[in-house]
């Protein structure tokens, strides 16, 4: 009798604890605030009466940055903070257009090899000192100096002598940069680099304040020591807790910076960040939990923002080993047998665009080559896949056994499982799924000894198709497929030196076509940017590079606040 009552009690307790599953049944969150209608003045600035009284932005920002030294930094979370702290010669508008930054205008020589930048005479460091061309000269020399260890030093590779300085043959003073005066900075390039102005939005090209480095050494990025030339300055940094920036009153365009303070929170877990957003602690998230799409769609549609990103999710083959060495037909068969739409509709589910291409759309000046099979139906592709599979010498009785490698992650696993199932169903391929911890995975991919087919992905570093194509140069450090095609290498070199934009574009299209026809990659879909944004936060816009500078944003009052006549919500 007692026992029965006890187990009943246990059962109810357990049920009570298990009930609020984090998915559909969860209670509705407090309703998202509805922002006031924004009115603008003649200069396009929002009118003060619609602005919220407290202009403090709380941004979720992925993992803790490795460093806030703009030249050493790596990774998207770090770059997000650096874009607020510093400013390059150029910067981006909310929609991603490249616009003048520390340089108000520039001249490009007729041959495209000499850039002269005229710095904003109002440019100031956060300590009030003027930003000069000498700062840029010194900073760029630091970037290419091999002892600095700049992770993205290659960003300056187009500059004269940069490559030789990296490899230690020349001293950093030989870099092709000169300060013509305090406010004019000249750069000599080896090859015309049409995307050069875009590179200048990258943190690696930002100036650093020499006296602070000389005084504090590697401690120069600590709050109190860091001197920056952007819209914000660093005031607090608690590791893995928060990074706080305050408006830099010396910033050249400080009058137009509305957000007074930005707090960046690092999150190791997307669900944690999601909970913080639901609790009203964040205005902006770094990502959203992948499994919550339908809940978000029905409960937080006003806050859920999904837009294309400049990145591609793909698989690739180790071309230096069996079974993929010299097996074009087999690689093509595997490529065609993957039904991308099933993956994007059933697995990833955030509106990702299925693709057979490597370079994502959205570039202003790139019309990608479309492979023939992209227009076929999936049934036609599968028929062709079966034909090619037989042609490659495999059959039901002699199936291909292949290892498909990916780095440990729930999403990658699901996608790999789906692909293995498709290969199995269409061709009878036996796939062994191997998941590896990220660093082991990277090392195995790079060594090309044990890999066969593997997951890859790439987010473009700058807005040009070249950022994807260069990965497959036979000498590139991330050419994990081991693709080595002299014709392709030559094509890349011609792209680098081509001066006429239309010709250069055609060469790039040709290069992508060569990669796709050689079946080096198995593209699956283009990445999407997915985040939650408080509707009161305005001034930002979608862009494929996912650059969002806080200085363009502002918080507006919610309609509830207006009704209460300025009564504070908090």
């Amino acid at each position, binding site marked *: 009798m007692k026992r029965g009552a006890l187990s009943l009690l246990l059962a109810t307790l357990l049920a009570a604890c298990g009930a609020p599953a984090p998915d559909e049944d969860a*209670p509705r969150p407090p309703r998202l605030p509805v922002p006031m209608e924004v009115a603008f003045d003649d200069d396009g600035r929002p009118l003060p009466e619609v602005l919220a009284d407290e202009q403090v932005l709380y941004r979720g920002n992925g993992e803790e940055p490795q*460093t806030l030294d703009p030249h050493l930094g790596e990774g998207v979370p770090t770059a997000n903070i650096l874009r607020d702290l510093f400013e390059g010669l150029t910067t981006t508008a909310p929609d991603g257009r490249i616009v003048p930054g520390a340089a108000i205008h520039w001249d490009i020589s007729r041959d495209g090899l000499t850039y002269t930048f005229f710095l904003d005479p109002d440019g100031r460091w956060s300590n009030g000192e003027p930003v000069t061309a000498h700062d840029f000269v010194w900073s760029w020399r630091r970037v290419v100096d091999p*002892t600095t260890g700049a992770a993205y030093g290659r960003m300056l590779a187009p500059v004269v002598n940069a490559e030789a300085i990296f490899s230690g043959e020349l001293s950093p003073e030989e870099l092709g940069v000169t300060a013509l005066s305090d406010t004019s900075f000249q750069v000599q390039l080896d090859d015309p680099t049409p995307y050069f102005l875009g590179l200048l939005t990258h943190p690696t090209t930002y100036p650093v304040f020499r006296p602070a480095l000389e005084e504090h050494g590697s401690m120069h990025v600590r709050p109190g020591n860091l001197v920056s030339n952007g819209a914000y300055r660093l005031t607090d940094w608690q590791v893995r807790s928060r990074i706080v920036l305050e408006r830099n009153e010396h910033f050249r365009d400080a009058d137009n910076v509305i957000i007074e303070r930005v707090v960046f*929170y690092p999150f190791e877990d997307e669900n944690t960040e999601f909970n913080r957003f639901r609790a009203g602690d964040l205005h902006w998230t770094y990502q959203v939990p992948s499994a919550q799409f339908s809940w978000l769609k029905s409960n937080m549609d006003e806050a859920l923002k999904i837009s294309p990103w400049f990145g591609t999710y793909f698989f690739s083959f180790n071309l230096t080993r069996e079974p993929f060495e010299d097996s074009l037909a087999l690689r093509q068969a595997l490529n065609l047998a993957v039904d991308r739409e099933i993956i994007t509709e059933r697995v990833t589910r955030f509106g990702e665009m299925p693709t057979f291409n490597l370079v994502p759309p959205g570039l202003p000046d790139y019309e990608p080559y479309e492979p023939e099979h992209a227009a076929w139906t999936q049934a036609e592709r599968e028929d062709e896949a079966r034909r090619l599979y037989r042609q490659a010498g495999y059959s039901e009785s002699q199936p291909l056994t292949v290892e498909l490698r990916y780095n440990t992650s729930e999403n990658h696993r699901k996608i790999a499982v789906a692909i293995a199932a498709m290969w199995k169903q269409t061709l009878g391929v036996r796939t062994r799924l191997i998941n590896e911890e990220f660093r082991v995975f990277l090392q195995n991919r*790079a060594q090309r000894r044990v890999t066969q087919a593997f997951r890859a992905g790439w987010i473009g570093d700058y807005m040009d198709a070249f950022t994807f194509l260069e990965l497959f140069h036979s000498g590139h450090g991330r050419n994990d497929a081991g693709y080595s095609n002299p014709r392709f290498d030559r094509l890349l070199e011609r792209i680098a030196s081509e001066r006429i934009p239309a010709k250069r574009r055609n060469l790039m299209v040709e290069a992508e076509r060569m990669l796709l026809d050689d079946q080096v990659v198995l593209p699956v879909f283009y990445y999407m940017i997915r985040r939650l944004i408080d509707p009161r936060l305005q001034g930002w816009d979608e862009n494929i590079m996912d650059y969002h500078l806080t200085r363009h944003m502002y918080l507006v009052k919610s309609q509830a606040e207006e009704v209460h006549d300025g009564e504070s919500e908090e």
Partner: protein
Amino acid sequence: MLKYSLRRLASAIPTLFLLITVAFFLIRIAPGGPFDSERALPPEIEANLAAKYHLDEPLVFQYARYLWQIARLDFGPSFHYRDWTVNDLILQGAPVSFTLGILALAIALVVGVLVGAWAALRQNRPGDYAVMSFAMIGISIPNFVMAPLLILLFAITLGWLPAGGWEYTPSRTVLPVVTLALPMIAYIARITRGSMIEVLHSSYIRTVRAKGMPEKEVILRHALKPALLPVISYLGPAAAAIMTGSVVVERIFTIPGIGTYFVQGALNRDYTLVMGVVILYGMLIILFNFLVDLLYAWLDPRIHYDDGEAEA
């Protein structure tokens, strides 16, 4: 006692040395290195970074260099968090983890012992069953389930407490402390109950009862103290574990403690950071086990360290 203490502390040195040696070589064996990333570094820069952190030297040299460093209490620069040294990171993280750990430990000890003793006095009666069922649930619900449930209820639905983040304030501390304490309360309650029942059945308790001592005094003066011995032995390692932080709780509540450094440090191949937290953890384990042994002597009059060991 002093002699014993000194001897115990001296014996900690070879233990730590062994721990450092094993950990040092194990983490280096793991494939991949601290500077591997999806964006391949140019080989020259990789070489420069390796030289900067002495990773280009033979492993034995690195090991010797490391031993010399920690002898001076310098855990070196973090390979991943480039702007910080391991000392910085531990000094920032440890107080947070210690605060949470000590609070959770204190709550768990008080509540657990009370509940366990109370249940023991009602052995096999409904109250005992009810409490022990709760304890069972406390043990079996993992904290990665408990923490989101608490957040959902108290932060999102009721809006009483923040959903995470860290400040030294009660509102930010309560949920993580409760999450950490719940399973410990359950363990301590079960251990206390078991050992209390055993003590209550022992002959000397029968004797004091037969002498007519009031029940309250029997329990508080004679039963509880020896019944705590197994709890104390559980507390030693548990205290070290809880004070070095919990990966799960830190992740879910975004708490900048040191628990995450074990995992993050290993994943990032941040050799020095992993070593730093391993050494800290090792020292805490040794320290707490030592304290436990001292407490034994105080709780159990039959235990005398110096005499017993001197004879042996």
